């Protein structure tokens, strides 16, 4: 099966709210693929060393506005994209992305950035072969995150939007808006929507099924012994 992007590799992205269970699912998918001896690479949002300092500085000192928040993250993504994702796609790897450009679309649009501008910013990035959206009801995701009474970070809680005067209330409203953006994209962007309320192993079985159906995994085995 050929991919729209034309590269020999494949890209699988997982999206969803914090607490939707997506990271658990992508981890299990990664384990499954590793144990089958597939050429895979796992990448996370916000992980490039290069831009990390700037992001950390901006976030710590709360220097970021919606526009610079968006640009800092786009720069970080571009670095990871040009350095790892794209070369690996060209080399025929399966790339697993825990969050991808849709995370940026949802957050930046909720922060008030012009949707056309944000989409253009990321237009250099390939569209994933499969994008899983882990759809857990807002209360479920919030419950999972907030039950531990975590320390919520300023931007993570959407405090810059003046939605509420404490991190917890702000986080709830902010996540609600992001959830609404995800739901809108689910239809227009062709997400594979997963029921995030199912037991972990049931979801994982479905995820593996979708992957096997859409990607000829035998093409991505390591050749020869490692």
């Amino acid at each position, binding site marked *: 099966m050929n991919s729209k992007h034309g590269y020999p590799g494949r890209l699988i992205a997982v999206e969803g709210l914090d607490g939707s269970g997506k990271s658990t699912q992508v981890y299990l998918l990664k384990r499954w693929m590793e144990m089958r001896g597939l050429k895979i690479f796992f990448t996370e949002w916000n992980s490039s060393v*290069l*831009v990390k*300092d*700037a992001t950390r*500085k*901006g976030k710590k000192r709360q*220097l*970021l*506005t*919606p*526009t*610079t928040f968006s*640009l*800092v993250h*786009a*720069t970080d993504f*571009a*670095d990871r*994209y*040009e*350095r790892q994702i794209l070369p690996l796609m060209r080399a025929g790897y399966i790339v697993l992305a825990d969050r991808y450009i849709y995370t940026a679309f949802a957050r930046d649009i909720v*922060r*008030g*950035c*012009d949707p*056309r*501008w944000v989409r*253009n*910013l990321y*237009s*250099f990035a390939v569209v994933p072969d499969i994008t899983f959206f882990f759809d857990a009801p807002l209360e479920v995701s919030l419950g999972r995150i907030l039950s531990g009474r975590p320390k919520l970070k300023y931007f993570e809680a959407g405090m810059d939007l003046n939605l509420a005067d404490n991190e917890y209330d702000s986080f709830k409203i902010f996540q609600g808006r992001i959830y609404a953006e995800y739901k809108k994209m689910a239809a227009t962007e062709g997400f594979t929507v997963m029921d995030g309320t199912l037991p972990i192993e049931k979801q994982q079985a479905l995820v593996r099924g979708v992957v096997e159906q859409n990607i000829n995994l035998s093409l991505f085995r390591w050749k020869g012994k490692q």
Partner: protein
Amino acid sequence: MMKTMPDPPRHFGTQLPGYDFSELKGKLIVLEGADGSGRSTQIAMLKDWLENLGYGTVNVGLKRSMLVAEELEAAQQGNILSHTTRSLFYATDFADQLENNIIPALRAGFVVLADRYIYTLMARDIVRGADRAWVKSLYSIALKPDAVFYLRVSPQLLVERNFRKNATLNYWESGMDIGLSRDMFESFMKYQRLIQAEFRRMQSEYGFTVINGNRRPRAIHAELRAKVQEVLSSP
């Protein structure tokens, strides 16, 4: 007379979230041109002249943001950025200065003297193969300047001035990262011609004023002064 028509938007197509450009009282004056075109000299002379007249001035330029200037400088030194990353890094630097220096100064009625603006950033990206539409959209959040002056200097004279000042050519201003030539002198000449061609293209689109920079600083200053005077007396 009452205004019946709303002012045209002062941005290039995208509203910067959280800012109202209609309340800006100051003037934004941009000087564009290559290294060695005399930009800094002219800005210094304009600043003296304006302050002598009693205008408050603020200087801005590229790679001076509080947010990422340091990190950008470090990354440039190591030459480790790919093209898109580098474009976005510069755009972040620009947006941070736009929001934290340029707009507040204009709101307070200062004359902002910009030592290069989005045009240099766009030209550099396009010459390096970035998609024109992508770059234009990226910078469509920028504030439209009240005047843009482009100091055009022949590549031969640029070389001469760069050597006189630094006895060396700058790696980036020679476009050495694009692989136009292994020979730095040749690369510099080729790169500057490409940038100038891009500026010519932008000139008709954005309507900036081309200033012949091959003249003595005093002569250039006299011309700039007359043109800035017009900008200051317009409402």
